[in-house]
């Protein structure tokens, strides 16, 4: 039986010692203060800040250290001016501190592993070593993990689930919610059942001496069952999903036309809204007509654009079907209102539509949430650049009467400046792409 010190242990402790010595040496103290010296740091400050590093490094030679720091500080003085570093010296110390902390953890782990292997060796010497003891330990750990995992799933459903879940406030959203809950029940059942099997089998069938596994290469009946059962469940889910999807996306022609039309345009990093005005028709947009005074690029040659209304927020009447025309000025964005279960991408050169009916006003939602500041919000869900994370627009749902009042107070896009500009120019830019927004 060989008692050779494990190489790993030797090298870990060797490394640690080397690093400790490195930090303790005078040359490092000089380096440290060079790197950390800022314009106004005086010698005593340097001294006090380097001290913790030295103690951490485990240096016992504090006398030499403090003298060297003093020496270092003087040599540094000349370099201070050139040094442009504005980083606080504490930063480096913290980094070193964390690295040392990690190395200490590593050492502790190495020591523990070493103790275990010594323990095993003694057991082997006494002839009491059970080669399967670790195997059993891992099986037990997997079983413990099962318990922890199930508790974690329960906790997360209960706590985070309640944080995450808000009932949909649109008609089609209710259908989606039902389907979501059905799918959640099925998947949670599968998750829990399979994990119970996956993590109890290791415990039940862990390796034991003089035991053989059961030679069981296949069983066609069982395999057929677990092919067919998921197929049936999936078919049901697919059918419901398919019909719900068709319901949402395939709106009959007359309902499309009778709905309130609203156009939303995404650009870096804001959303603009256009209401059709009295004629109920959104005027054409031609991106080539975009100017600084007409950032939306509305084509005022189209007379139905003249009464189009510009709004700050998206305001919608409750219980009325709204058809959104989603366009993009520059790159891809995604029109996403989580509470409404509404999402569709804004694609340049193409109009996308989403039609839905909100069923709850903002006020009702606030009462329900017991949060007087709660608002529906439109976000951008497609990566679109540096302010992607803050591309938002407030969505307000109000009663029909409030909506009419609000609408009458909004300004038209075709304001006086634009009218003047339009009458002075006779230029018409032809649009040869397929996009007629």
């Amino acid at each position: 039986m060989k008692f050779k010190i494990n190489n790993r242990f030797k090298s870990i402790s060797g490394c640690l010692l080397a690093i400790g010595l490195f930090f303790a040496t005078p040359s490092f103290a000089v380096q440290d203060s060079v790197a950390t010296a800022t314009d106004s740091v005086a010698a005593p400050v340097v001294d006090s800040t380097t001290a913790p590093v030295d103690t951490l490094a485990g240096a016992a030679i504090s006398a030499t250290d403090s003298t060297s720091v003093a020496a270092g500080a003087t040599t540094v003085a000349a370099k201070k001016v050139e040094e442009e570093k504005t980083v606080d010296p504490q930063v480096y110390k913290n980094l070193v501190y964390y690295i040392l902390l990690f190395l200490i953890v590593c050492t502790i782990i190495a020591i523990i592993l070493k103790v275990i292997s010594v323990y095993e060796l003694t057991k082997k010497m006494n002839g009491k070593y059970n080669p399967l003891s670790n195997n059993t330990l891992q099986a037990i750990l997997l079983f413990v993990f099962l318990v922890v995992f199930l508790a974690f799933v329960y906790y997360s459903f209960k706590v985070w689930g309640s944080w995450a879940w808000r009932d949909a406030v649109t008609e089609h959203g209710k259908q989606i919610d039902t389907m979501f809950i059905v799918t959640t029940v099925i998947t949670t059942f599968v998750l829990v059942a399979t994990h119970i099997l996956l993590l109890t089998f290791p415990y039940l069938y862990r390796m034991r001496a003089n035991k053989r596994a059961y030679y069981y290469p296949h069983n066609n009946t069982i395999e057929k069952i677990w092919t067919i059962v998921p197929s049936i469940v999936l078919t049901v889910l697919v059918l419901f999903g398919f019909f719900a999807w068709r319901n949402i996306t395939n709106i009959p022609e007359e309902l499309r036309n009778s709905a309130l039309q609203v156009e939303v345009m995404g650009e870096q990093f804001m959303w603009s809204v256009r209401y059709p005005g009295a004629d109920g028709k959104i005027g054409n947009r031609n991106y080539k007509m975009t100017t600084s005074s007409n950032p939306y690029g509305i084509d005022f040659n189209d007379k139905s654009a003249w009464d189009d209304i510009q709004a700050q927020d998206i305001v919608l009447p409750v219980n009325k079907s709204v058809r959104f025309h989603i366009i993009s000025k520059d790159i891809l964005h995604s029109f996403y209102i989580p509470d409404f279960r509404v999402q569709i991408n804004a694609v340049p050169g193409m109009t996308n539509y989403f039609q839905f009916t909100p069923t709850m006003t903002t006020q009702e939602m606030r009462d329900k949430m017991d949060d007087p500041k709660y608002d529906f919000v439109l976000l951008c869900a497609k990566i679109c650049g540096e302010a992607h994370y803050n591309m938002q627009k407030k969505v307000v749902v109000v009663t029909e009467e409030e909506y009419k009042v609000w609408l009458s107070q909004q300004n038209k896009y075709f304001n006086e400046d634009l009218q003047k500009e339009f009458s002075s120019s006779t230029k018409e830019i032809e649009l040869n792409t397929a996009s007629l927004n």
Partner: protein
Amino acid sequence: MSSTVISHDAAHHDSHDHHHETFWTKYIFSQDHKMIAKQFLITGIIMAVFAMILSILFRIQLAWPDKDFPILEVFLGKWAEGGRIKPDFFLSLVTIHGTMMVFFVLTAGLSGTFSNLLIPYQLGARDMASPFMNMLSYWFFFTACVIMIGSFFVESGPASAGWTIYPPLSAVPSAISGSGLGMTLWLISMTLFIASQVMGGVNYISTVLNMRTKGMDMWKMPLTIWSFFLTAIVGLLSFPVLVSAVVLLVFDRSFGTSFYLSDLVVQGQILPNEGGSPILFQHLFWFLGHPEVYIVVMPALGITSEVISTNSRKPIFGYHAMVYSLVGITVLSFIVWGHHMFVTGMNPFLGGVFMITTLIIAVPSAVKSFNYLATLWRGNIRFTPAMMFAIGMVSFFISGGVTGLFLGNAALDINLHDTYFVVAHFHLVMGSASIFGMLCGVYHWYPKMFGRMMDAKLGYLHFWLTFLGAYLVFFPMHFMGIDGVPRRYYSFTNFPFMEKWVSVNILVTWAAIIAALGQVAFLWNFFTSIFFGKKATQNPWNSNTLEWTTPVEHIHGNWPGEIPTVHRWPYDYSKPGAEADFIPQDVPFSQTMSSNQAHDFEGNEEAIRIQEQWNKDNNRTVEG
């Protein structure tokens, strides 16, 4: 690398003459499949560490959006001025993290390593069909990695349009700074990478089809080989489509074409491009992109099958069903790409069709999971670190897989598309599951690769830290997604409804940091064991497959003498009547008369007659 020194008495093997190898031909421009596998693995590990560090950086930003970390400025300079990562650099981080993990680690690092290592070994071939192309495959991959890392040293920063690089964002440099030179480098790197994958894929397929040893018919191949073979087919058919997407994007960016661009007014500037469609890019991208996730997960499934069977000391349950479900996944993977595009404005009816095909692909995946459970049932399970990772892989495959039912359902996808729910889903089912498959393979075949053993205790430590860490990181993200938090958000502080998640983000980030530090246990174990590990025996896991019949010391041509002949399938574990609980594939039935079963002979009447005679002479009764 003392373990890999070619033994000098290998000169007498019959197919190759002994020739002198220099350092360059042996370690650098090697054409030996074993060395190339190691090159792929080590490069993959380095890329994984790099991509993991990137993820820690953006996790820090997400957990503490209002806090400065001056140390970041020391390393990142202007990208983290004042110690806070900038929004556009944040996007670069997520982009390069995704690209590296998906392509460089889980595609090249996983397939490249284990296909190269195991295809010749487990099939009984002396090397790959074309070793030179194999070498080129690695060097193209390596160059791609270097270029991708190089993009961090570009003034305008690395690519930052997301790993899916959707145009117009990726095509118009004025929209985001990362779409300048950084994006060009991304495209060059990816083109080289695809060239590497195609060369690798051709090689894997031709080796599997042509170079199997005597007796190794397709139905005697281990599931690892089946999965590498089918993965290579998927890769070969889908990667070229990404090249076309990339080339057209290069044209749009550099030569003024309009394949993907139309009607753009970026930063007040009207662009001249007309007539293209960004949706075209998405179709081309996801035609690769979706098969890609199966390219990532199928090798992991194959490796896991082998490891679970070996360590349960039990044949894999339903070998044929496992193969057919892999074939099913292979075929279906080509007709489901549209589920990434439900809400892009693609024709909704087409979306409905893609939804049906998508949910069908869940059936073979479910069959595979159930078969793993059935393999564990009544086994005699040995928990090597590889086995722990295999169990972890199955766990992730299930817990990440079930959420696919939400995302594959077009109606539910409306609310979940591009949210954290998606992040949680794919990080579990293809990220964590595949990484676990890869680590499982590393622990299992390490003795074969380096001739030494890894330290098991550090392996367990690594497993538990990673397993718990991955669940703590990704599970909570489902709930953020259900709440409607979109992915790739720089901070959660601008929307009142997201603020509650900052506390969860802190938990997630700590879990990520601890799991990341846990990888040090692996790296230490991996690199020190190469030199100081315990010497491996020839067949340390008592496994059946052919690679364990080769000598521990690597030799050119793998087997010193003749290549063994294969007589049986690779899963004869714990066969009743056999002496040991495993019978390697090269053991003929004539040596295992006491354990042979009628269906072993596949209708060979002469053999059945001899066996029956033997049974009668030895009073053996065969049930079933």
